[in-house]
């Protein structure tokens, strides 16, 4: 163990991962003040993701409050896994069962947007493709060999991935020497929509934008409040600064 850690630290193992290199994430515009979008995102999340994933640091009533959904509506539309509105948002499926079925327990997603970033989630949800070699029948260019089945395939349809060969340059440390290696690799080129879903690509894109928006909210529910308070704090400090400077000037008049 120690040897592995130490060699990791000293860079004896390859540092640049090949898979990570060719990848470019698509940018998604996040707008936390768009409550309608957050509400739509919440609905998607609760209906399609919460069956497997936890979002256990957030509570239903907090979400309802922040998103402007009344407790009544939360209870009616969003509460499946529990009947207490003050509960944490836990998956319907117990983690142990999920682990048995997928090989990996689906991770808690409350902080996913802070861990991976919104662009990653947004791209990930666009990047599932049919792969007969994989266990679930699905693969993902952003997360190769992902154990998650593509639950929104009815919406997006089925994508096929097209690959091409390229030369990759990577820098690795070998025996304490920095070495440059050139390898040929198969990298992702683009997707083809083999079987359309119930949504047009445009509609699907909007849905994923809403979902991502919601997940960003979920990663830090206090964010808007934080920024709002920050403005007042800074205004207060600015006024205080003027007074402090005047006070200092007054006292220091006689210092030459």
């Amino acid at each position, binding site marked *: 163990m120690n040897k592995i850690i*130490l060699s990791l*630290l000293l*860079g004896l193992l390859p540092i640049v991962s090949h898979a990570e290199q060719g990848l470019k994430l698509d940018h998604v515009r996040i707008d936390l003040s768009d409550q309608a979008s957050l509400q739509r995102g919440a609905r998607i999340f609760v209906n399609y993701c919460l069956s497997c994933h936890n979002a256990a640091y957030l509570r239903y009533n907090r979400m309802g409050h922040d998103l402007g959904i009344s407790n009544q509506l939360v209870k009616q539309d969003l509460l499946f896994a529990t009947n207490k509105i003050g509960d944490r948002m836990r998956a319907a499926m117990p983690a142990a069962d999920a682990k048995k079925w997928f090989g990996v327990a689906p991770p808690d997603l409350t902080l996913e947007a*802070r*861990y991976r970033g919104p662009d990653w989630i947004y791209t990930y949800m666009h990047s599932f493709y049919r792969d007969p070699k994989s266990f679930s029948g699905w693969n993902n260019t952003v997360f190769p060999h992902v154990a998650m089945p593509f639950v929104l395939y009815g919406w997006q349809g089925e994508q096929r991935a097209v690959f091409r060969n390229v030369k990759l340059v990577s820098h690795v*440390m070998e025996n*304490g020497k920095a070495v440059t290696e050139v390898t040929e690799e198969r990298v992702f080129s683009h997707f083809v929509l083999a079987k359309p879903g119930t949504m047009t690509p445009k509609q699907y894109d909007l849905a994923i934008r809403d979902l991502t928006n919601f997940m960003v909210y979920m990663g830090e529910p206090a964010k808007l409040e934080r*920024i709002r308070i920050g403005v007042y704090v800074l205004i207060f400090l600015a006024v205080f*600064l003027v007074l*402090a400077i005047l006070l200092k000037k007054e006292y220091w008049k006689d210092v030459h």
Partner: protein
Amino acid sequence: MQKIIAWIDDRFPLTKVWNEHLAQYYAPKNFNFWYYFGSLALLVLVNQIVTGIFLTMNYKPDAALAFGSVQYIMYDVSWGWLIRYMHSVGASMFFIIIYLHMFRGLIYGSHKQPRELIWIFGTLIFVALMAEAFMGYLLPWGNMSYWGAQVIISLFTAIPVIGNGLAQWVRGDYVVSDATLNRFFAFHVIALPLVLVALVFVHLVALHKVGSNNPDGVEIKKKKDEKGIPLDGIPFHPYYTVKDIVGVTVFLMVFAAVIFFAPTLGGKFLEHDNFIPANILSTPLDIVPLWYFTPFYSMLRASTTDFTHGMLAIFTMLVAMLAFFTQRGFRAKFLSVAIAGVLLLGMYTLEAKLWGVILMGSSIVLIFFLPWLDRSPVKSIRYRGPLFKGAVIIFVLSFILLGYLGTKSPAAVDLFWFKNVLWAQGFTLLYLAFFVLMPWYTMIDKTKPVPERVTLK
């Protein structure tokens, strides 16, 4: 009021302390920008302690609960997010302030006689602060917390013979685990804060014994009026209390701007990999410490066999030759050869990674010796010559670039021409050279005459 104070004064030296340390404590009247950072360091120390107490009310030092309890603070505790951000951003601010505070000491010669002890206590504070930050970083039990601690503790294993046992003793386990988390918690919330507060206290006692230096490096106590008050001194209170309020307010604006608008500073103050719980099976792609440790981390990683057998060995020989030819007396000559011999022997026999640890350690130990490495007859950079000024510029650039390189993969090319590791090796030597060569360049440097009295711009 008067009566109450008199009552207290009969039992406790309230007025005496007030006068000696504030109302009749005379500080030079020419303090500039750089002199704000001492009081700011005090402020941030208090901030860390107060926010730390509130965090501890909800934090659970248990490997199974720690991560969740931190999220509980972020999601459920009223104002919990604010408290946590004040603490995490405060830690980074602390280092910014301390680095600037130390830099001030360096350029104005505040480490020089008679302030050597202030400097030494200060450096001890710096070491304690690094330990405090390192241990605190494990507590949220995120994946980067975990692997960062794993990597740094495994450094002990580079020590021959006792290394493995030592690392295990520190962790209390074969890997970083619940036992490690519990002891780090104990150190972070009580042991080290006590040490820090005690050190800050003696730092200030020593300061008030000799009095502050100033940007001119003139001893104000040498010129006093008939009442024994320094001619260039002004009472700390009210002059510097009102001035420090201005500094504090400006600092609070910066602090608040980060806390409220960019609390993670794009992953610099809170790393993305710390938003998932510690996982022994999943190593982050790049294990990178927080920014304030990256200069030292760079030095650690710079040490390869090529480096110890090449650049470092040559550097050691050059310094030894310089010492040999400039030292008078057989003993000194013999010593310089002997020390270099032992070092060189070590470089060719011991593992490079051990030298990484030694270099990193030396980079901090050398700071303690600054008062004696600096042979210049003048204190302030204002009256020093081009050699010292140049050395300071090179030193600061090396430190900043080492910090930058510490966040990058050693084998990649992020500056130009050479791989990062080569740059880091060069800057490590420049960092060391700043201290090791200091006795020579400060001695031959041309200095300007120092004025009798302080100057006001």
